[in-house]
Structure formats: structure tokens, C-alpha cells
């Protein structure tokens, strides 16, 4: 199942207005590491269906978004809960690391 794409305005709504726990991968088509991390997220997504959101931002389409988080590269997976930034994972990450972080975010006090 492919990830839901967010543009700037949808990002505002989903992250800050809805505030549900979620992750957002900042990625681009021409990045081969991104292309191997995105499938990992797509596979993980059903496991957390209804509990944790999975979103995708294309940095070529939305410069403002990566500038806002002063990102220095792709892929980066940013975690959010109740509209608060919960940290990130960068570069080539393994499924287990992502899963662990999701569980941490879900279990964290807010």
C-alpha cells in the first residue's frame, strides 16, 4: 500500500490540527536510498493501521517543508504526536529501528 502524500497545507492539517501519532518520510524520486526505505514503510504501514499514520513528502514539490525542519538530506523520517516533533531517523534505516521508534512514540506520555 503506497504512502499518503502530503503537501504543505495537508501537512499542517494532519500534523498540527489532527495531531494523531504519525511519521513523515521526506524523500525524493532520484534518491536511491529513499527508494529502498520507502518500501519498508509501505510494508510496515498495515501493521499499524488505525493506530499510527504513515505519510510522504516529496522535497522537490515542497521546499518550504524541509526548510522548516532544516533538514540536511534525504531520506529522513520525522515522528510526530499531538502536533509535537518527536525526533527523526536519517539515511538508510532498518525495519526494526523504525518499528521500535513507532512503539516508543505510541507509548510515550504526552
Amino acid at each position, binding site marked *: 500500500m503506497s504512502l499518503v502524500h502530503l503537501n504543505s497545507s495537508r501537512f499542517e492539517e494532519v500534523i498540527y490540527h489532527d495531531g494523531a501519532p504519525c511519521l513523515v518520510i521526506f524523500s*525524493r*524520486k*532520484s*534518491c*536511491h*536510498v*529513499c*527508494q*529502498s526505505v*520507502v*518500501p519498508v514503510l509501505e*510494508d510496515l504501514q498495515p501493521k499499524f493501521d488505525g493506530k499510527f499514520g504513515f505519510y510522504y513528502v516529496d*522535497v522537490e514539490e515542497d521546499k518550504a517543508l*524541509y526548510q522548516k525542519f*532544516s*533538514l*540536511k*538530506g*534525504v*531520506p*529522513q523520517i520525522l515522528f510526530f504526536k499531538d502536533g509535537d516533533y518527536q525526533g527523526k531517523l*536519517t*539515511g538508510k534505516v532498518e525495519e526494526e529501528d523504525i518499528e521500535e521508534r513507532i512503539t516508543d512514540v505510541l507509548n510515550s506520555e504526552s
Partner: protein
Amino acid sequence: MGNAYDLIIIGGGPAGLSAGIYGGRAKLKTLIIDKGTVGGLVNTTREIVNYPGYRQISGSDLMLDFKKHAESFGVEFLRDQVINTDFYQEEKVVKTKKGKDFSAKAVIIACGSEPRLLNIPGEKRLQGNGVAYCATCDAEFFEGEDVVVIGSGDQAIEEGIYITKFAKKVTVIVLHDEGILDCNKVSAERALQNEKMEFIWNSTVEEVLGEENVEGVKIKNLKTGSSSELACQGVFFFVGMIPSTQFLSDSGVEMDQRGYIPVNDLMETNLEGVYAVGDNRIKYLRQVVSAAGDGASAAVAAERYIEELNSFKTNVLLSDKNVLLLFFNALNNESLQFSTLLEEVNNELTENYKVVKIDIATKKNFAQKYGIKKVPSVVLVNKGMEIKRLICSMDKENLKTQL
């Protein structure tokens, strides 16, 4: 078994996709396994201007064409990662990260290469926070900032030039004496004339500095041994590539110290029915065009290997009669004459054998299997098991008594 294929290709870059095109066209049931989106490292190439037939195309668009081409011949694709293999059997087995097993008569390894890490302090910790390996992916994040590039090969210099489109300044750290770059001349001239590029010669980087983000690098001068610090927000490492063959460490596939796989002209590895193509093999030129050529060679070699395997199975292993395996060479007259004699003698027997002729010039595998060194040679087999070897006499009576 739904997971049984004729040909499995590990890796979907230009070499793997080309092998797929040839395999699919030869009507082999072919599967390409790739852990990401097919195309491999070529996807990061912004512009390809030397692939025949395409004056200018982006790497990812070219790979999309390769993929569509392979699909048009019925090649199947799977997004998964091969983590283990068993190549010792005639049916090769690959196991994937998602826990699936696939088998094939032949396997082509086309898993490419990945950037080499320098393994200096700060490099790993600051990955994605200023440490980068791909300009196409990350150059844009350093708009108006200071960037350091490590290396002076084609990739380092060409990517460095690209980064100047965004960065305020690009400082290239070069191992060699002043004026010496490892890259091609055209790029060297362009770089040396680029006002935004500076060079630090005879030097290497020994540490990446910074807490949350890259704040600088520690540079060591190899001539004087002295160290200095240079402030920057980004460091791009272009210090060569390493083959992505770690998953083959227990496979029995022979590799050199660095993990590259040696092959012959047919792209055969040391293991029967296992081939290696593209960037993960030892080779002179690592380009899309040469990768494609590798893929074609391997797929054709694999096709012939599979065909021989199948015909050997039907004609020899499953034969009810005992079989005389006659090893000959079309270029060797004596072996041809002997072949005629053997047929003649066999026809005169009351209970005759099935004669299967094997040209050792093209079917080396079987010659090897039975340890055949010279032609003519004859091995009498039952269901493939050796019963005895004949003395290849041109004397008809002598031959007859041996049968």
C-alpha cells in the same frame, strides 16, 4: 511450486534488467528481485549522455525504459531483499528478508555497489545531518552554505561541480599534489576554473565535527602531518564504491578481498549455473552500457546452460536404456571418425545402447562432471551413474568386445 523459476536475477540495475530482457525473450521463466525501486544507482544520475541511442536522458527515465522492456517479455519483479542462498544444488535456492524461498536453475548476481565509508569519527553519527554520499539527493539542502567534498575521482569532481549550483563554496580535499585530480580531464579543467571551488591538496579528512549537525571537518596534511579545522555545513564523501555482496559471504561464490566477484567471458562464477554481472564483478569499465552487455552475456550463457541441463535430464538421466556418453570435439577429426565407428558398432549389437554425443567445446559442464580431459572419450552410464569407461580404440572388434 509457484516459487520455481528458470532464472532468478538478484538486483534490478541496468545489468540485471538487461539480463531480464534476454532471459524473458528466451522464454525463460525469469524473476528479478530488487530491494528498492528498480534502476539501482543509475537512478541518481541526473544526466546520461553516452548510452547509445539516447543523446540525453535522466538515469531514472532510462531505467524505466529498461524495466518496461523487460516486462514486455514477461519478466516478473519482486521487491524484497535476498539475505541467504544455497547455490550448491542443481536447483539454486534464494531466501529473502520477507521469509520467502525461491528456486531457479540459474542465478545471475547483479546487486551492484554502494558508496564506501571512510569510517572516520563523526561520519556515521552525522549521516543525514550534513554527511552525505549523493549530490543528486542532497546538494539542494546546502543552499548558500559551505560544503566540503572528499575525493578527486570522476564522481567527486563532477558532483562537486553540481553542488556549486547550490552551495556558496565547495572545498575539495585531495590526496595528491597540487593540480593532480583523478578524474577525467574535461571535468578537471572545469573544476579548476570554477570560481566557487577551492582545493586543499595533499590532505585527507580525519574527523567530521559537530553536535547535532555538521559544523566542520578536521583536515590532516599528509606532507606536514599537521591538522587544521575547516568550518562547513556539509561533507560529501566520494571515496569509491564497495560491491554489495556481503550477503554472499557464505554462498561459496568466489570473491576478491574487496568483495568483487571474478568471472570469465560468459560471466560464470566459480559455481555452476551462477553468474555475476555489472558493478559487483571485477571489471574495467562500470557504465550502463557495459552493465547491459554483461547482462546479455550472462543471460545467454544461462539459457544455454539450462537447455543443456534439460536435455541431459531427458536423454541421459531419465533414459531407460544404458547410455554411451561420447565426448567429442567438432574440430577434432579423430573424435569424429571414432564417433562414426561407435555408432556403427552399437547398431550391430543385439542389445544396443543409446548414444548421446557431447561436444566438449560448448558443453564444458558435462565434461567437467565426468572428468573428461581428452577427446574422444566414452563413458557408459546408467541413469547418469558411471558404469565404466571405454578405451577408444579405432579397432572395431576391440571396441565391440568392450561393449
